[in-house]
């Protein structure tokens, strides 16, 4: 099995915008992914170390991401979290990334890059 992609590679290859504080993204591995905008489904389906794709951008994604310890949240279709959400993410160590692409396209490209369900 291939070595998991690290967040640095993913951010570069998908041209994602980092909304939270910079970190050593190359040290963070994405072991898989889960896509949903329903928080309870994410609670059930996303594992720690996964990327979570969603077009939700409000405060409550931070709590979910922190509890699950996902590698990062990829906020799609340019949905813009407010400053309070970004501040809370920084405080809880949650990484928020942003892209104009829709969920489907990000999923497809991640799969091609080798990020599959662990």
């Amino acid at each position, binding site marked *: 099995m291939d070595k998991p992609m690290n967040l640095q590679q993913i951010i570069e290859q998908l041209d994602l915008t980092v909304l939270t504080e910079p970190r050593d993204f190359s040290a963070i591995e994405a072991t898989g992914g889960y896509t949903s*905008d329903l928080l309870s*489904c994410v609670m059930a389906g996303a594992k720690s170390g996964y990327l979570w794709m*969603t077009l939700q951008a*409000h405060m*409550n994604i931070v709590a979910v991401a922190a509890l699950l310890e996902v590698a990062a949240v990829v906020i799609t279709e340019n949905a813009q979290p407010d400053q309070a959400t970004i501040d809370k993410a920084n405080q809880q160590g949650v990484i928020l990334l942003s892209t104009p692409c829709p969920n489907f396209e990000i999923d497809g490209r991640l799969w091609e890059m080798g990020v599959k369900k662990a």
Partner: protein
Amino acid sequence: MCPPTKPQTEQEIYGRRGRTITDRDAHDISRVEELSYDLKVHEVMSTELRTASPDMPLSEVLEIMRIHRISGVPVVENDEMVGIVSLEDVVHALYKGNLDVPVSACMTREVVTIANYESVVKAIETFSLTRLGRLPVVDENNKLVGMITKGDITRGILIALQKDYQDEEVRRYRASHLFEDIISDRTTLVLRYNIKARDFNHGGNASSNIKRALMRLGADPQITRRCGIAVYEAEMNLIIHTNNGGILKLEVEPHRITMSTVDDGPGIPDITQALQPGYSTATEQVREMGFGAGMGLVNMKRCVDTMELESTVGKGTKLVMRILVPNETLTGHSHG
């Protein structure tokens, strides 16, 4: 040495360099930076003073520098500092070929000093402004009490960091041995959280505090995760569905963790229906935020070992969930 009474510095009165610290600043300050404000010069300076007198020949000062491996010696006369002689001054004299001259002939008279009650950050600033390698430390009466170098600062900060680390270790150790150290027939740790209805901005805060508490108590990561998910769903239910919020309670015992919520309405008309995956009564507004998938209760049930849900319309709902803890994972270290 007894630290002198310290006058309040400008930094202490006005915050960092005279400006108010914002929350953002506070977050950005690293522990090392924080320590350089907290630590005072007298806490890190060296107090073993090697001094010279003004009439001492320079060759003798060179001997002092060589033996004690120092590069600057304060010059003291009648208990008062009158100058400082550095290795550079000695080299200058050596260049002129005369080490027999008295110290007073080549010492620096305008001495930059630092007060012992200043914070270490002030010393760092002075070092970078003056490019000096060492500073004599004086007390409030301008009496020489020590010397400080960049090396002293580094050492002081490292010692303070190590102490921090040990403190955290001790705290963690104490928490993880809570159930061994406190002897009773039945020890229970109870954490209670008041959850407000519609308070989405704080949604998940209680859950993340519970998760942290369980980690400190040394709970198994898998159990901590299950508790985290179950309690998050319960917390969000109080925020989304109740009239007046409710109470979220966590009871930790060595053999089990009990999570419960109580609220005073509106109550669930049909519990069997509420337990159906996908069934939800959430409003359109709440659904737009990604809640109301109709999976909350399903998730809880999946994460816990037992779940009891009682509800009366108009009165309220009581939820009790339990996770059984396999032998001793909550008492720190298993003996196996």
